[in-house]
């Protein structure tokens, strides 16, 4: 009996107090091994809103890319977004409750199939959003990590540059740069938008790095002679991954809105490219007479932005269970 007890006291993890500091992840069964990634995945898949968001986003993405195809690869929808035709029934949507019809989303003024147009717009909006999300994450992470880890003049310089970017109104800044870059296609536009939206992430990452660099495992790494970049890449950044992923998700959601606003204002995607924003912009005058030309792209913008935000919510709860309700 005493041997048993000794073993369990020495080897077994003590039962932690679940309310103390909210260290919920410590309450576990010694036999099962969970990595932090597994724990996060487990919590994420319990978040119903996030799962619904993920399902909607995947559905929209698959629909947009499979229906009209990518580049020269054809999709299952038989109409092309560029081909004009005769306007049937004033361009009204033919979609019924269960029927699809000839032009499910209707036709525009020149008789182009509006479903194909919306799908094309969704494709481009999604591509730009992901370029912006990933680009701004990379820029923001590098700037935040360097500023937070090295401190001193590097921090002062980088953070003042960040402040400079923040004080200029985003829309004006993006509009000026966007109108310069928009001639060169959507990739250039995406990168330009990424170059003006990294500021929030840079500040977040810097804050995380500032607290992580004081942790003892960083001191331990320094004491054994680990180089600075190895410390940043192997010891610090993996511990900020939660913050980064969550911020990226929200950056993608706001990039969708930023791109649509810019395109709506005429500074974003330029013809012959189409985005959801430019569709709304092109047909804003049709709102009273042919409202479907406004509603369908608007609905897609709403659905994409909402689902990405829900995914971000789920990820944040998964990475930081202390904010959860039933922890």
């Amino acid at each position, binding site marked *: 009996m005493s041997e048993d007890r000794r073993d369990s006291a020495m080897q077994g993890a*003590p039962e932690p107090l679940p309310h103390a500091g909210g260290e919920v992840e410590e309450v576990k069964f010694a036999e099962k091994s969970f990595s*932090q990634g597994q724990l996060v995945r487990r919590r994420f898949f319990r978040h119903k809103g996030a799962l619904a968001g993920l399902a909607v986003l995947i559905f929209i993405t698959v629909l947009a890319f499979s229906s009209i195809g990518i580049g020269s690869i054809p999709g299952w929808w038989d109409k092309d977004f560029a081909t004009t035709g005769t306007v049937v029934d004033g361009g009204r949507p033919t979609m019924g409750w269960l029927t699809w019809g000839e032009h499910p989303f209707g036709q525009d003024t020149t008789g182009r199939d509006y479903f194909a147009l919306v799908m094309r717009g969704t494709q481009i909006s999604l591509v730009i959003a992901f370029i912006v999300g990933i680009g701004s994450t990379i820029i923001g992470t590098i700037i935040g990590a360097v500023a937070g880890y090295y401190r001193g003049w590097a921090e002062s310089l980088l953070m003042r540059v960040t402040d400079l970017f923040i004080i200029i109104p985003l829309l004006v800044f993006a509009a000026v740069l966007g109108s310069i870059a928009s001639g060169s296609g959507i990739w250039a536009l995406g990168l330009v938008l990424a170059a003006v939206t990294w500021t929030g992430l840079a500040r977040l990452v810097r804050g995380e790095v500032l607290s992580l660099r004081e942790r003892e*495992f960083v001191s331990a790494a320094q004491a054994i002679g680990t180089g600075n970049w190895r410390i940043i890449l192997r010891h610090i950044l993996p511990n900020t991954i939660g913050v980064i992923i969550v911020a990226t998700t929200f950056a993608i959601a706001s990039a969708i809105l930023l791109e649509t606003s810019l395109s709506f204002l005429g500074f974003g995607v330029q013809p012959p490219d189409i985005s959801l924003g430019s569709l709304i912009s092109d047909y804003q005058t049709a709102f009273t007479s042919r409202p479907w030309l406004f509603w369908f792209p608007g609905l897609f913008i709403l659905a994409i932005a909402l689902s990405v935000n829900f995914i971000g919510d789920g990820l944040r709860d998964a990475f930081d269970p202390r904010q959860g309700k039933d922890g």
Partner: protein
Amino acid sequence: MTAIDNTTEQQPDGGAVLSFTDLDVKFNTEFGRVHAVKGISLEVKPGEVLALVGESGSGKSVTSTSALGLLPRNASIDGQISVAGKRVDEMSGSALRKMRGDDVAMVFQEPMTALNPVLTVRTQMVEALELHGKAFGKEADARAIELLRMVGIPDPERRLFQYPHEFSGGQRQRIVIAMALSCDPTVIIADEPTTALDVTVQAEILDLLRSLKDELNTGILLITHSMGVVADMADRVAVMYKGDLVEQGTVHEVLVNPQHDYTKRLLTAVPRLGARGETPPVESEGPKALEVTDLVVEFHRQGKEPFRAVDHVSLSVSRGEIVGLVGESGSGKSTIARTALGLIPAASGEVAILGEDITKMKRAPLKALRKRVGVVFQDPASSLNPRLPVGDCISEPMDVHDVGDKKSRREKVAELLEAVELPRSVANRYPHELSGGQRQRVSIARALSLDPELLVADEPTSALDVSVQAAVLQMFTALQEEYNFGCLFVSHDLAVVDTLADRVVVLKDGVVIEQGDREQVLRNPQQEYTKRLLMAAPVPHPDEQRERREARHAFLKEVGEKDFGLHIDAETPKSSR
């Protein structure tokens, strides 16, 4: 309201001011139910100190928190809890709030976080008095001053208007105690009240708490993990282990003649001053593992004079020798350790590792030298990268210095895990899956992965439970004999240093007070400060501890200091209970 007032006046019957009957607490968590307290019964009588001891996770804090009705919502509670004859488990929100403070008060572990840093002491003390309708306005101020004087805060009229940061740690704990006393509670729950304090301050706070029960007849539930504190304070002791009450009795019964295996083990695990006999001096040749000469470390402050944390310190560690660096918080012991690792720059002086001065060294040779130095830090929760599996943590130094290939690294990791008495399979686990003691073993394994000639250990066991600490220290000694590294062992615990070190250096305010062989410094100290430190360290035996306490009081009187009990003025008599 009146009904509640009536019950407040009512004297608790049966004598107990705080009692738990068949208390059972479960927590619902993400991973199922955690059974934190498994049906325990306890009683605290007026003027009595009941010590509730146990290691982390034993459920002692959950038990005490339940008496205040402060458990989180995911807790389900069974059994009866009564405070001053009233059932806490049946109380509503407003009755609970009235009971907290009026009948039961709490003294927390960390006095800095228990006080609000942006409010003056006056605001916080008067708030407690006014909320409970004890005194208002000028009268409340006067009462607060009286309370501060009682707990031994000098010049209370002026200091009442100061902020918490203007007081020392010990004084802050006195203020917390004064606030706890403000509504004349019948019972005080002290949750590890001295754990965050230095030994000399701990002794003073314990003196104060002891006088509370004598002068005011307050019942005290003292929660602690330190057997020395129990011996010093308690009338009765209850031992908790994994949510169960395994032993209960008077302090003599439990500490001198323990019945349960767990209690016995706990007591043998407590490191004792003077338990280790004489040891032969360590002989070594060649350059010293670490030689610090005339070291000065300063921290720069904006707009102020730089703060001198280490002031002309010289010490050395030979190979195969453990040097204990002891001192209270703020004495600069960790700063010296970090400077020796090259993490903090030295303002002047020399730090030579294995004969080479690192203060003026370039990067490449410094990296090569660091290969020969290992380090173990204090906090097992933050000293391992939570994103890396344990095996990767241990092999990290080998990766950095490009030692061996993948296979030989893996073999070395397995060998090291065996050396620190952990199963090989731990290599694939993540740090958060391990207990504090296991993590600290992993830290030691990492420190030893390159066969260092010097190991710097900064309080490696102070965050661990005693039984875990004993096992880690034992292992540490065995490893030191096997690998024969020189070790700078930083600790605030004289008993730990006594069981481990060959030589001892005593620091105070960045200055070396005394250094020499362990026997000489700890058995026959020359300096007053060292004597004070030694006298303040409690031992886990009630009679022995009383003798030590009396000897300490006599010594303090000799050097001209007042005693530290409760100060009750003759002119302003305290309302007696």
